[in-house]
């Protein structure tokens, strides 16, 4: 069996709202293994992004334990959490969040600069990452000159360039048309298979769901279902999918 990369036990997240508290996540018990291509789905406000933020150590649980690559998120200091993200986690955001004053190359390179990698190594890795996403000819362009699809590809390259163990993608196709969405998803699927990187999506896009191996549905902060598909998760093989109820 593969390594457990994420384990959540009795995870609860509450936010103060006025005089009371809003429960965003309630009693979440999930385990993700290395190399998974999974997604958390559900309507807006169901807690998908909150779960991803906690796993990404950008937020902390109110109760329970979240263990990411052997690190208990609740006990990490800001510096340790930053180090975890820097070395092991890549983020892909809905609106790409590219740094506007940098070129495509510099945006991707930034992740490696934070890891204090030398210039020669950085150049090699960045060009390879751009090759993965098919943007090696756009290295000197500014983000403002890119299309939506190209912008998200740069974001993928930026997340993948440091070869993280885990990539957290929050609604990565929400701003893309169908053609670009499929193209992006195929790229990510390919990287998942080639580099054995764990991908965890937050989405309510049907196109994304078609590619996922595992679908976790959140409703009102609780896991409503956890479905594992057998096969590579591409739409054509969905007919072969087996349904497994995890909880």
């Amino acid at each position, binding site marked *: 069996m593969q390594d457990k990369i994420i384990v959540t036990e009795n995870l609860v997240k509450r936010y103060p709202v006025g005089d009371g508290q809003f429960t965003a996540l309630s009693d979440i018990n999930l385990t993700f293994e290395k190399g998974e291509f999974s997604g958390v789905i559900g309507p807006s406000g169901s807690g998908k992004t909150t779960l991803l933020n906690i796993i990404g150590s950008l*937020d902390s649980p109110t109760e329970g334990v979240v263990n990411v690559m052997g690190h208990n998120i609740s006990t990490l200091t800001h*510096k340790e959490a*930053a180090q975890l993200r*820097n070395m092991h986690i890549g*983020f892909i955001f809905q609106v790409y969040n590219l*740094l506007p004053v*940098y070129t495509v190359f510099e945006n991707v390179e930034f992740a490696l600069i934070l*890891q204090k990698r030398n210039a020669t190594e950085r150049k090699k890795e960045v060009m390879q990452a751009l090759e993965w996403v098919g943007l090696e000819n756009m290295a000197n362009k500014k983000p403002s000159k890119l299309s939506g699809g190209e912008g998200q590809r740069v974001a993928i390259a930026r997340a993948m360039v440091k070869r993280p163990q885990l990539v957290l993608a929050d609604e990565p196709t929400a701003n893309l048309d169908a053609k670009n969405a499929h193209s992006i998803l195929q790229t990510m699927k390919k990287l998942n298979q080639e580099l054995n990187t764990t991908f965890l999506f937050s989405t309510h896009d049907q196109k994304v769901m078609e590619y996922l191996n595992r679908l976790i549905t959140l409703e009102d902060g609780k896991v409503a279902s956890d479905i594992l598909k057998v096969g590579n998760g591409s739409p054509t093989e969905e007919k072969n999918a087996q349904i497994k109820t995890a909880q």
Partner: protein
Amino acid sequence: MKLAFHLAYKNLMGAGLRTWLNAGVLSFAFIVIIFYNGLIDGWNQQAKVDGINWEWGYGHLVNDNYDEFDSFSIEDGHGQLEQSKQKNLTPILIRQGNIYPNGRLMSIRIKGIDPNQTTVYIPSQILKQSDAQYPVIIGQRMAESAKVAIGDQVLMRWRDKNGTYDAATITIAGIFETTVPFVDGGQIWISIDKLREMTLLQDHTTYFVANEQYSHSETSGWEFKTQKYLMREQTALINAKKVGGSILYGVLMLLGLLAIFDTQVLSIFRRQKEIGTYIAMGMTRWQVVRMFTAEGGMYSVFATILGAIYGIPILWYLSVKGISFGTIGAEAGIIMAEKMYPIYGIGLILFTILIVILSATIVSFLPARKIARMNPVEALKGKIS
């Protein structure tokens, strides 16, 4: 820190015109500070040199009864000093008198000086070149106020040591130009031997001007006033001007720094998602704080570069050509040349750069501290108000 500067540089260059507008405002303050201080330093230097050359020499040995601030002390403020102690000293005898140019009465100080002296710049040699019975020299301002010219004769009245009035017609043998009002306005210079003869004060002196070789030893009845002591008023005046000037450039600096502060506050608000992204990518909050602080601090570096581009030619031109202030110095009774030449010391420039960089860094750090308290999730959503 290198990373912070690298990123800050990229961000500032990427911000384009906004960066250069801020740097422009700050560079203006920067140039004004250097110019104003340079002007004051130039004035200070000129006033010091002129004051030493024309009046102060290397100190004054003053008769105990004479008080420079008390005109009544002139009457008895003189004495004799044995010849052996007069080495490297130039005697000056002061008496009060009146002249009647064109029928007007003008109170004056008659100052006796050795025509052969070389301690001060008073062109006393003219006195021995003249054939007139009572040749005198006066400063340009005195000539203008008395409306007299070289060769003019004027009636002068004085009292001798017994209080007896006497009068004679003096001849203007020379008119000199000086920036030092203490040797010009309301004064006429005459040979000290002639003045002693006129006032029956043989060998009497009010004060002696020391030259560079003079070495003072205690002398009863005489007090030695050092060059520094004699300069004290001019120094105090210049220092006061510096303080006054600092208000001006303080306001200018404030404007420049306010622009940076404002930009930083706006920038942090506007770039929340970017801040969130930096944190998500693995930067610590303090790394982001350092980056934003470095960004603000770098405005001052850009201001220095920008200031150097347009400031060096302007400041150099002014230091070579000088700035004309007319006769306002003379009218105010202070040592001030009609044209002043700013002096820009390397210390002044480095100190100003340091102050500008430090201030800009501090005002950048103040709003950037907010980042350290930011919730990265809220920042990524751009929801921080």
